[in-house]
């Protein structure tokens, strides 16, 4: 099979993995000839699904002995199969990287023979890039479920980031859809990587010349919408992973219809709005001091689809407002709908020199239509009077649905891009 045909199959098979980050490794590996990592990730292109193309994201092979129902590569799928050799992946990575198409390699694989054999192949790719080609760019290796600890340890020496997919939010979901994957084993694998990362960073802090170990940390992915599990469970699982396993990122992937879909799962469009809300909630947990339980205000334990979770929280906690932007503590400012972390930092900086007025907030480009109801400023803010209105929730609701999620269908019809 031609490289091009393999690439088409094995990139297609990898696209359901949402992870695209290429950030996190602060410095380039010493001795690198081609490739660098300087902390900030770069998105080299964007596809019409709005996702960035940062890494060459491929599977080594899409042959797989597992039967995870949501996965296009499950053993019971009729999808065409292909397999790259280690050298083919290495060459492709170097060729793409040298032309500045990509920021690095994201390599995952279906499971062939057994977990350890597959993991060894992935490691061989990373090792060849690092040693034979003096490649210093980003490498993200997906660890293979149930691979041995020794192999996962070795992977961390060559990769910038390791990830173990949690796949589904609850243990029950896994039993149902991915019978071969067990949550305790997944969590154990994450724990192993966390310990290793910690050991190495402690050694380096103590002045030892410990080798790099997954300097960009570890991440995971959760598929949302393949089972009825509500958002609150999704967020609790994410919160545990951030807390216990020190994950850098949890990716939420709306269950997407796949070619060769399994009849055991319902065919439907991916719940993109829900995915978007989960990312917003995730941000609230990581940067705004919200706890998983308080974010989900709705009775059915799901995030509201028509308003963002911070606004939903504010509507459910009206007693907390109005917040005086000239006096409130950082934690309080972070809870105001429509104001982001950067604006909060600016408010804190400005108010040391002058009191903030409505015009200042508008200049900061806060989402004033949402914000105005919840803040006191140095001058009169007429919007705040709506806070006591019975129909407040109707007033702050965006009048039109999130356009960006729906603009595509029309542009697909008209052909206009």
């Amino acid at each position: 099979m031609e490289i091009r045909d393999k690439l088409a199959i094995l990139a297609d098979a990898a696209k359901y993995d949402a992870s695209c980050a290429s950030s996190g490794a602060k410095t380039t590996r010493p001795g690198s000839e081609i490739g660098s990592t300087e902390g900030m990730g770069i998105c080299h292109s964007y596809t019409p699904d709005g996702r960035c193309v940062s890494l060459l994201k491929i599977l080594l092979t899409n042959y797989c002995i597992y039967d995870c129902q949501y996965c296009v590569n499950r053993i019971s799928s009729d999808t065409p199969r292909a397999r790259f050799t280690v050298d083919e992946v290495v060459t492709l990575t170097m060729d793409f990287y040298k032309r500045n198409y990509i920021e690095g390699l994201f390599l995952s694989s279906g499971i062939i023979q057994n977990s350890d054999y597959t993991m060894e192949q992935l490691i061989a790719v990373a090792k060849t890039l690092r040693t034979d080609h003096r490649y210093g760019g980003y490498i993200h290796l997906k660890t293979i479920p149930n691979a041995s600890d020794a192999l996962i340890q070795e992977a961390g020496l060559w990769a910038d980031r390791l990830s173990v997919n949690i796949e589904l939010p609850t243990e029950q979901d896994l039993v149902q859809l991915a019978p071969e994957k067990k949550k305790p084993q997944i969590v154990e694998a994450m724990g192993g990587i966390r310990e290793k990362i910690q050991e190495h960073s402690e050694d380096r802090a103590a002045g030892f010349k410990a080798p790099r170990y997954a300097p960009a940390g570890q991440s995971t992915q959760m598929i949302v919408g393949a089972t009825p599990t509500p958002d609150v469970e999704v967020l609790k699982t994410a919160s545990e992973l951030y807390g216990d396993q020190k994950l850098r990122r949890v990716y939420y992937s709306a269950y997407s219809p796949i070619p060769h879909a399994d009849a055991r799962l319902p065919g439907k469009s991916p719940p993109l709005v829900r995915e978007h809300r989960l990312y917003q909630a995730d941000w609230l947990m990581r940067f705004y001091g919200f706890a998983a339980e308080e974010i989900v205000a709705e009775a059915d334990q799901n995030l509201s689809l028509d308003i963002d979770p911070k606004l939903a929280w504010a509507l459910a906690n009206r007693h907390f407002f109005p917040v005086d932007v000239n006096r409130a503590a950082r934690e309080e400012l972070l809870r105001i709908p429509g104001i982001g972390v950067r604006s909060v930092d600016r408010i804190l900086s400005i108010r040391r020199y002058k009191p903030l007025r409505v015009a200042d907030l508008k200049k900061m480009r806060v989402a004033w239509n949402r914000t105005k109801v919840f803040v006191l400023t140095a001058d009169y803010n007429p919007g705040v009077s709506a806070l006591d209105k019975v129909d407040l929730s109707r007033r702050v609701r965006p009048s039109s649905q999130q356009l960006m999620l729906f603009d595509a269908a029309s542009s697909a019809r008209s052909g206009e891009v």
Partner: protein
Amino acid sequence: MQFVTVQTFDDWRAAARAMLRSGVQPSAVRFSAPDGSADLFAACDAADPEAAPPTSPRSPGPPRSPGSTTSSRSPARSSEAAATTAAAAPRVPKAFLDLARTVACHRDPGRWQLLYRTLWRISHDEPFLLRISTDDDVLQLRRMEKAVTRDVHKMKAFVRFRKVTDDTGGEAFVAWHRPDHQIMRLAAPFFSRRFRGMRWTILTPHESATWDGTHLQYGDGVPASEAPEGDELEQLWKTYYGSIFNPARLKVRAMKREMPVRHWPTLPEAELIADLLSAAPGRAEAMIQHHEGFADTATKFMPADRDLPSLRQAAARCHACDLHRCATQTVFGEGPAGAQVMFVGEQPGDQEDLVGRPFVGPAGQLLDQALAQADVDRGEVYVTNVVKHFKFKPSQRGKRRLHQKPNSREIFACRPWLEAEIAEIQPQSLVCLGATPAQAIFGRDFRISRSRGKVFQTEWSPRTIATWHPAAILRMPDAGRAAQMREQLIQDLQRVAVQ
């Protein structure tokens, strides 16, 4: 009125320093680009991509004598501050210099004026001006700064090298890119770090940069017509781009926001976008409509009572997979409910299918012999299969029914029956006969050849073991090997029988 010609940041800094020292108010100075053109870069960045920028020396333009016109942009506040003229060299915060260095690359011709006005205010009575990000001047500077840094970031992202063979026959990489601002010198060092071991040149309309492996050199800008020819590898890149796109998710606005259309001409992959978009809805709908495998499993046919007779009765009507269509009947497990040992085979064979009982054909007879030799009473064990219907294809002449291995869909659909049987019997020992039941019980990476005869504790039974399927022994052409396998089967049976 004082006129100052400025092209680079250093020009501006020298001029600004001198003017600040002599107390020249922002309203009394007017900055312009050299050669009389108000904005050099705007000229070369205009719609005509072929227009090459004039290349002029980078020396600071001499301040000209004060003219008679007055700038219309004089801020009112500067007149108040005019009295406090700093005689000594002004102290300028580093944060401002960093900001100014970046803003200097912006193409807006008004940037020098804005920078000087801000500098004047900082060095007179507003030392903390930069921290007030909602001040109009600061706001505008920050926006310009952001535009420049974003442009640098986009340059790092969107430069597309093409491989060329240079004069010496060596490999080199060349790219033509059109940035929005004059950012070559902000971005080039990044490329020299990233592509250290590579020889490359980046061309822009404003300026070019070349890395020979050790040194970075800047040269004149060139028009788009100087861009290198295509690179074979772009075909692979486009294959990748088209394949990584998920037609079930369309977010065109998000794509255009991050990858502005003005950059598309230099991105080889961008020519695919229109086709990908128009085909997407059809592809997504086809994916939603198309299904593979069976929608149901045996769970749908599961009776309320889970005792063996109820299960057997319900299984007789199971239509979860298609095997029931050709098979004669469901062959359910058999044996006492209180059995200590449970055997699981793959699926019923030809004779089992006709009789309706498991392990009654040749393989069953071999199992009986092995059980007897291992001192196990068949009447006390429970015998069943992973798949309860016979899967076969007719032989070439159509006279015989040839066994076919059940696939993973059939196994998955039928599996609830096996799980219900195990739950009901709760065997002390569970014996998997062959690879199919072993993989159903232990997981798909289980290998009989490696783990046969080993006793494991599993969620199904405290003593779970896998051994040869009697049919595998019968099919073995090598008689010696068959005898050995038979011995191993008996040993394994003894292992579970000894309690």
